[in-house]
């Protein structure tokens, strides 16, 4: 068995682990990162994507390694064991850089009331920190990615500094939508208009030659992989950390957290294809995402900790949340020309907060520049359907009861000039919106290791119980009503609303809080039960809010650097 030693051992080389590592090596700490996945070669990933006939979000990273399994996009249950009444549909990848490889780049801050849902609206729980505690760290995270944004955009937050990078221009499509939505308001809050705003994005508006990153060139491929590195992913931060001395071991899956009799963590046992190793250190950081982090903690059962590490509260693995994503899509009256920009450049953010949160979850509205690629398919899929027209189109999101004016079964096949014109006329008018609906924490929604069902890595697969609550269902209901207004305002001749879908925003399985009886980590992300163990990532979020989580993950990670340093000095 090989041994590794460092001041700080970090499990997980995604955005949280990478930012922590960079912060620490900048302060001359000795850092080791253990990453289950492998290094991703961007050029090979893009080539793999282009050369695969049946492309999906996993394609650039395929095949999934037996030594680092994760839920495949097309069938998450190849990895998850699901026991609840509702399907948990979000996935992630294992790779150095983590799931930021195929995130959208949306870099929103949470709004102040997101941190105090219980005290403001009487639902969920309050965070042990408020917006003012994290504002500075949001800015630090925005500088690191960097985030391009519009200082004047109505996003519901107060900024103390301008965005570090100038905004990504709105698309032609955004501007048509903005005009069409001018008079629309929320059905249950008429005072709130659907004001379209430029979305802050972890995407370059200017090249960064030092990092071999180009400015965005509109390849419309942010998901699954940006071909030019314009969109931030954590591999850039990892590279900076390595240049300053951080050591990274890839293809290394942590499988047990060792402790001494005082409850201090002493080492991380991990497996590689060539055998097991132990990483010892002074401080340990778990940053392995909201599924794998609690799984590792719960797998680390011992006589001393029969319920796993950090779990005296019995909260590890509980309160699993996601944004339940409801799509609406249609064919606009006016040509909007999708597929020629970042996947999303604008949204509606002012709808994320209001008194309605006493009764239903909030949502944000993402305006897509990607046509119908998400719910239906790319133009080649459209073309195949137009050509055969043997029945209704395949909607990936299972919404057949929710469509209006869909063109079904025509007697003839399309070919020739008519086929070509129909492709053109459909694609130019395709529009898609995503509503990210907020759910409440529920301790019954949880992930536990399935000790009797092992994955290809020989370790327990994640077993998930998931049930949508009435709060999010009420949000979805208002979302669909709002979507109807939006599609009508755009004169859409064909309209669809999808069933709820996973947004990939997996949150809440090692919640932070002041009370060790009801939470896993404190406000500084230190584990209540183990003084030299920190947990980073979206698993620490007490509530999910309605904004994409990545910038908050990054801000919390940077905020925790100082406390890890303090712990090192002790």
């Amino acid at each position, binding site marked *: 068995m090989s041994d590794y030693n460092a001041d700080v051992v970090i499990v997980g080389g995604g955005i949280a682990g990478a930012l922590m590592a960079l912060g620490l090596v900048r302060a001359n700490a000795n850092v080791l990162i253990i990453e289950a996945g492998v290094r991703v070669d961007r050029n090979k990933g*893009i080539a793999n*994507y*282009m*050369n*695969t*006939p*049946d492309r999906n979000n996993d394609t650039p990273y395929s095949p999934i390694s037996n030594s680092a399994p994760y839920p495949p996009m097309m069938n998450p249950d190849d990895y998850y064991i699901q026991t609840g009444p509702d399907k948990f549909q979000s996935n992630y990848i294992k790779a150095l850089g983590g799931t930021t490889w195929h995130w959208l780049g949306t870099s929103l801050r949470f709004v102040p009331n997101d941190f105090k849902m219980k005290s403001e609206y009487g639902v969920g729980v309050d965070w042990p920190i408020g917006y003012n505690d994290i504002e500075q760290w949001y800015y630090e995270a925005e500088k690191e990615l960097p985030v391009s944004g519009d200082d004047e955009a109505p996003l519901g937050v107060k900024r103390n500094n301008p965005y570090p990078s100038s905004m*990504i*221009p*709105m*698309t*032609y499509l955004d*501007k048509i939508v903005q005009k069409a939505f001018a008079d629309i308001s929320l059905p249950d809050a008429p005072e709130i208009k659907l004001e379209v705003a430029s979305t802050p994005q972890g995407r370059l*508006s*200017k090249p960064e030659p030092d990092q071999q990153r180009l*400015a*965005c*060139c*509109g*390849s*419309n*491929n942010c998901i699954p*992989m940006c*071909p*030019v590195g314009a969109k931030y992913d954590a591999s850039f931060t990892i590279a900076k950390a390595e240049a300053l001395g951080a050591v990274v071991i890839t293809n290394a899956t942590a499988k047990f957290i060792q402790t001494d009799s005082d409850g201090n963590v002493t080492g991380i046992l991990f497996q590689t294809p060539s055998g097991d190793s132990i990483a010892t250190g002074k401080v340990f950081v778990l940053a392995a995402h909201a599924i794998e982090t609690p799984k590792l903690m719960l797998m680390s059962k011992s006589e001393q900790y029969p319920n796993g590490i950090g779990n005296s509260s019995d909260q590890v693995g509980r309160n699993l949340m996601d944004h339940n994503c409801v799509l609406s899509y249609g064919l606009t009256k006016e040509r909007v*020309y999708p*597929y*020629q*920009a*970042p996947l999303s*450049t604008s949204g509606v953010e002012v709808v994320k907060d209001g008194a309605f949160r006493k009764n239903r979850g909030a949502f944000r509205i993402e305006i897509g*520049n990607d046509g119908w690629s998400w719910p239906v398919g*790319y*133009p*080649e899929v*459209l*073309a*195949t359907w137009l*050509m*055969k027209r043997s029945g209704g189109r395949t909607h990936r999101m299972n919404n057949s009861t929710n469509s209006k004016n869909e063109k079904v079964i025509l007697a*003839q*096949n399309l*070919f*020739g*000039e*008519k*086929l*070509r*014109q129909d*492709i*053109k006329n459909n*694609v*130019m008018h395709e529009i898609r919106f995503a509503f990210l609906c907020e759910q409440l924490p529920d301790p019954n929604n949880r992930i536990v290791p399935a000790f009797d069902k092992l994955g290809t890595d020989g370790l327990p697969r994640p077993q998930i119980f998931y049930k949508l609550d009435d709060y999010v269902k009420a949000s979805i209901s208002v979302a669909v009503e709002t979507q109807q207004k939006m599609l009508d305002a755009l004169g859409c001749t064909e309209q669809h609303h999808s069933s709820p879908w996973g947004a990939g925003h997996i949150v809440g399985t090692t919640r932070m809080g002041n009370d060790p009886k009801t939470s896993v980590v404190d406000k500084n992300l230190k584990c209540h039960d183990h003084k030299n163990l920190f947990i980073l990532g979206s698993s620490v979020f007490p509530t999910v809010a309605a904004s994409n989580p990545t910038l908050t993950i990054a801000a919390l990670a940077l905020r925790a650097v100082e406390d890890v340093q303090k712990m090192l000095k002790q």
Partner: protein
Amino acid sequence: MQNKIGRRQFIVICSAAAAVSMLPLLPGCSKRSDLELAEFKKLSAVLTGFQVTDMDNDLAAIYYKSILEFPPVDVNPSELFADLELDTVVTPAPNIIEQKIYSDPKKTLLANTIITYWLSGSFKSKDGIKVSDYQQMYAWKATGYLIPNAQCRGDFGFWSNKPHVV
């Protein structure tokens, strides 16, 4: 002898030789194969709605070879060509195509296979479905303003303006 074989019959013989027996083309077929490729391009153009000059030579060769080696039905593309009288007709009327091709399920399937190969940039091979050239998926060209995703489409911010549509 050769003069007594019509051009269409000759093509059928060559195609059958390639598709069925998988033997090398018959002596003297190579020149006719070139012609056949041009004819395949013409047939492809009629079915997909593009101009013959839009149809890429290399792709035409790949797709035609695939169809001969892995025929979706027991109908040769030359039959579609003959049905539409493409050796004399430049652009058959849609109702003629409907009558001659799309009234027959087998010919419909063959026509759809040809269209699918061009539009999706994928074809059947001995190793399964393969991508011929991602950058040349004709479904994207058909839009008049796009190239397939994952390729740079212009300078930063170009998307703010209405695109030029061909």
